[in-house]
């Protein structure tokens, strides 16, 4: 069972002696979508980096039965000396693919995130912030990941575009059974995409509450998302974690 899931047990981590995470336990079944929520500075990004094996935790253990993890970072982190197309192809350099295959895959993935031939040939400094973010998303999806880690992946996009990109990720994940962990500030994003939510709070952060969303994500319409957000916002633990966001 555990061989088929992302399992983290007792994760603790600190920076320069300051504890950031304290005893975090998580399980995401293969093909599941987990959203990590919490106020900024709660250690969400640190937790994501540990789950993606970019960071070794001070204590605890992660079982990670995946071969192709892919990240979308909070900053797009594109190579400034490569075009959008080259940046997507860069992620594929570890694969046994010809250069032509890499580039054609990059092009089609860029089209999927709404960037055409013209934008594909531009350098990052010639693209808008939202376009850069979409290139980073295309780069992650291009490797056909079995584990997708998203850190505020939709935050620089306007509402319509963010929805569209969320739909893209959801369809891609469902089609190929991708396990997704996403870090977000946005409760509606979490409710739209995730099967389970984990709210971090406190310093060092611990899991303040866990929520499961039963309805399959493709059946969640706006009314359901709104009702679900209202239900969640009524919960004490979530209100505490999101006080600055919900008070407005």
């Amino acid at each position, binding site marked *: 069972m555990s061989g088929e899931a992302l399992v983290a047990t007792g994760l603790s981590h600190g920076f320069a002696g300051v504890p950031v995470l304290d005893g975090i336990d998580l399980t995401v079944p293969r093909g599941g979508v987990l959203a990590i929520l919490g106020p900024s500075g709660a250690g969400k990004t640190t937790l994501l980096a540990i789950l993606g094996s970019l960071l070794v935790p001070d204590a605890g253990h992660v079982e990670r039965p995946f071969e192709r*993890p892919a990240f979308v970072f909070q900053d797009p982190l594109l*190579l400034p000396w*490569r075009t959008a197309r080259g940046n997507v192809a*860069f*992620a594929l350099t*570890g694969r046994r693919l010809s250069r032509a295959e890499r580039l054609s895959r990059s092009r089609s993935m860029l089209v999927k995130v709404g960037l055409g031939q013209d934008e594909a*040939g*531009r*350098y990052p400094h010639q693209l808008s912030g939202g376009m850069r973010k979409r290139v980073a998303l295309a780069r992650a999806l291009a*490797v056909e990941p079995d584990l997708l880690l998203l850190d505020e992946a939709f935050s620089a996009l306007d509402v319509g575009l963010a929805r569209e990109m969320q739909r893209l990720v959801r369809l891609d994940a469902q089609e190929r059974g991708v396990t997704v962990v996403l870090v977000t500030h946005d409760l509606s994003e979490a409710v739209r995409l995730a099967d389970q939510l984990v709210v971090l709070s406190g310093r060092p952060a611990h899991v303040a509450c866990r929520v499961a969303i039963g309805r399959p994500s493709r059946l969640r319409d706006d009314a359901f998302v709104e009702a679900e957000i209202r239900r969640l916002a009524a919960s004490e633990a979530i209100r505490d974690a999101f006080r600055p966001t919900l008070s407005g």
Partner: protein
Amino acid sequence: MAGRFWRQLFSGERRWAALGILAVLALWEAGHRAYGDFVLPSPLATLAVLGRLTLDGDLGPAILTTTRDALSGFLVATLIGSLLGGLAGRSTPLRAMLQPVATMLIGVPAIAWVVLSLLWFGGSGLAATFSVAVAVGPVVFAAAMQGTRTVDGSLRVMARSFRVPFHVLLADVYLPHVLSYLLPALGAALAMSWKVAVMAELLSGAGGIGDGLAAARAEVDTARTMAWVVVVVALLLIVERLIIEPVRRYFDTWRRGLPGEAP
């Protein structure tokens, strides 16, 4: 046809460059008129001597020798300097060890290296190569180290997250950034190589432009001295325009975008 050629040659910025050179020539001519042939021969007289040097067959071999000396030293400096600099940029102990050494080496005057290398290697061409390499190497080292040190850590993490192979990491994450530091330094280093090579030749007497300068000085022939100076300057300009500038422009593309592309 010919008219268009001249118009293109002297259009825009080039016109101002030409004006600058003309001003220097005018000053030179004025100096000549004020102080006479012995102190400052006229540009025309210098040109005539240059012509004679060419006809006598002195110019070609001298240029070849100096080019060989300068470029061999430059090549050694570039290889060793960028390799050690690259390693020092990634390893703190190595950096702590090599940085003071480089600073010390930079502090030694180039002419001192020339004297030492003459004592060590005698009048062979090796003396010039060594002087150039040891004078220029630390400059390349410093630039390579600084470049490697300042590679964006988050880009490295990104590359690691996609499990990019090591050679791609070097070529696509490190190299472009390091080159943006290294190339301007290499331009300066190449110009410096030329000067140190001439200096070494001047003292070693093993041929080259420096040797020609020494001979002209021994015969108190100011016009020939000026002619050799003109040769060195012309060589420097040619190398700058033909090698350094195009390379720099090529690697700058990603900063400004490709020509003809939307900004």
